[in-house]
């Protein structure tokens, strides 16, 4: 079990002045598993992501990524080096694509560091020496693979900003995957998708987990996605972990129900919420 650990978060605390966004949070995420982080708005989910991907430096705590070649301490790594050296990729709650560039260019920019090395920091690339030409061809192949995977091959030459919303979400995932991550952090990937698109997203995420062996960390409000594909759910409320376990255990946890529905005495859920939480895994 221990060697299956991918990410270990220990006593993570993040304070902004007097506001405690995350309070002594510890959890682990395993390799080739989808770990969902859920919680009401303002619970600190995105802050966890920002700490993991180097946008914030945590006030306290240790973030260990067990990469293939040994553990790495994320909180000591400069922001942009986390995706480069440690293999943590992320997507954003409000999509951040390079809208003026084409879909293919978006995926090639994601492979910047490998290409940069191959172009010998542009000197070899300037004269189009063999090594760079080969690396670029490989980069295009990889981009093609992900274009097919997310079903955007035919739109490869469109400007990313012209894609419909659902395709932009998928492109952002493909772009993150082009950095060859070992941990993929997805910030509300199903937000704004219709039921058919979120079913497609489920298939894509499951394939990333099973075929690529990439561990996923998933923030999501859409319970049909969370309950169906996650192997492990962590529930946050006011920066604290209130539940941790498999989806079935979590959705019946009284603390979770309280966090979502408030401190009501009777334990009866309103029928539509109960239906939401008890989505049949085979529904789609």
């Amino acid at each position: 079990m221990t060697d299956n650990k991918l990410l270990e978060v220990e006593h993570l605390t993040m304070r902004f002045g007097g506001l405690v966004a995350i309070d002594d949070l510890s959890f682990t995420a395993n390799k080739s598993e989808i770990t969902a982080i859920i919680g009401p708005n303002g619970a600190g989910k995105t802050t966890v992501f920002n700490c993991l991907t180097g946008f914030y430096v945590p006030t306290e705590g240790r973030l260990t990524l067990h990469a293939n070649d040994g553990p790495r301490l994320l909180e000591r790594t400069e922001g942009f080096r986390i995706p480069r050296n440690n293999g943590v990729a992320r997507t954003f709650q409000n999509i951040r694509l390079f809208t003026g560039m084409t879909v293919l260019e978006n995926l090639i920019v994601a492979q910047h560091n490998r290409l940069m090395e191959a172009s010998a920091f542009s000197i070899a690339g300037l004269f189009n020496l063999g090594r760079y030409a080969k690396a670029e061809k490989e980069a295009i192949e990889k981009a093609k693979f992900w274009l097919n995977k997310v079903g955007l091959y035919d739109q490869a030459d469109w400007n990313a900003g012209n894609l419909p919303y659902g395709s932009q979400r998928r492109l952002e995932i493909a772009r993150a995957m082009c950095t060859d991550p070992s941990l993929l952090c997805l910030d509300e990937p199903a937000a704004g998708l219709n039921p058919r698109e979120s079913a497609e997203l489920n298939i894509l995420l499951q394939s990333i987990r099973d075929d690529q062996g990439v561990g996923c960390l998933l923030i999501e409000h859409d319970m049909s996605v969370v309950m169906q594909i996650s192997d492990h759910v962590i529930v946050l409320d006011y920066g604290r972990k209130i539940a941790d376990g498999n989806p079935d255990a979590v959705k019946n946890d009284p603390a979770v129900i309280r966090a979502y529905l408030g401190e009501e005495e009777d334990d009866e859920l309103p029928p539509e919420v109960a239906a939401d939480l008890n989505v049949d895994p085979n529904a789609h």
Partner: protein
Amino acid sequence: MSSAFASTRTNGSEVVKELAFFAVVALLMSVMILGVETVDRPTGLELAVRWDLVLIAIGSTVVGRFALIMRREGMSRIVQALLITVTAVAVFEMFVRFRDMDDRWASPVVLDMAFGSVLSTVVAIAFVAIVFAIAYFSMKEKGAVEVDESAKLSSKIQLVYRSNTKKIGLVGIIFFIIFPFLFGENRSAIDLATLVMIYIMLGWGLNIVVGLAGLLDLGYVAFYAVGAYSYALLSQNFDLSFWLCLPLAGIFAASFGIILGFPVLRLRGDYLAIVTLGFGEIIRVVLINWYDLTGGPDGISSIERPSFFGLADFSRRVPEGSVAFSDLFGMDYSSMHRLIFLYYLILALALVTNFVTMRLRKLPIGRAWEALREDEIACRSLGINPTNTKLSAFAIGAMFGGFAGAFFATRQGFISPESFTFLESAVILAIVVLGGMGSQIGVVLAAIVMIGFPEMFRELAEYRMLIFGAGIVAIMLWRPRGLLSFRDPTILLNMSQKEKVAGELK
């Protein structure tokens, strides 16, 4: 169309009433301001009445108002535009008379000016055409049919331009290469072409920073100055040749780019612009005040001219131990040789700038610049080092500025801080913005418009600035994002460039 607007059509007598009203207003306004002037006579100050100016003012008001009435009534755009052009010419006439003419009943100055020489006829026609075109295209008719047509035309032009950029570029290059053969004996033509070429090179250099990396740099002239002073000082103090100093000037300028860039590149947008503006001023102020090294406001004079790649010299009196250029090629001595050589030198430098930029755009570094311009946070999440990427743009842009500076120093033979004021930065930035950020051919066109035209029409004194202004207004109206503001993808998977453009225009 006429039936659609029949209900709003005013009848003739109402139109006349309206025009008469505006004529009276124009009379009241102009008679005191334009119509009365004090004249110094031996007997003392006297009032003179300039009825010519008042008449023109009333006339142009009435004609202009009539154009607006026609627009309101939805009548022919061509006639409207014609009327507005007439108004503009009348106002121009009024302006000229007000400033220089004392004779009240002289024939229209505009006609004298327009038919004075071939050049002025060309300028006059260009002016009238620009005004007419502005009027025509800004008068959107209520029925949208014709507007669609003009949009269709512009997208057709775009399609042709964007799918043939390479060919157009090649034609441009060939034109600039054969230029000295066309105007070989015309000293001022070669001088002007060299000047324009310096600005094209500076524009291309700045285009890397502003157009590709999206970093607003208001102090680009600082790197130009560093290049110029590097060459001047190295050649005066250490007696180094131009060909050795040229790369050194580029390296010095790039180092200054890095030194400036390192602390300030975490700033964004306006803040970065202010800091770079400050840096440009600091360099200039240091150059003025460091008298021992730079000669302060006196500048550095008699800077060495470049030799023919160290093989031959262009002077009439060749110093001991070197060969004259004319002897080397068995020609008669001509002072034009050096000028033409300088022209080809700057052309080569500019083309190197262009090719390096075009190539860098298709390399990871260039794509990272553009990605950084689009979204810095997303770049960080993909493992791109924003600081290094920005620094490389700054340094490479600065390096080309430094090359251009060294060339400037060797061409002028004299430099002083006055050549490196903020105005220069503003002009170079205007060239980049006017050309369309990131567009290489756009920079060429903008440099010709901004530098070439005002110089070419210098004999028209300040009226050229009027035309210049009209041209800038025209560009702002039609192409608010620059003359050629298109981004062409660096790589295409399953479309040709032409299909891509056609798809975008649909």
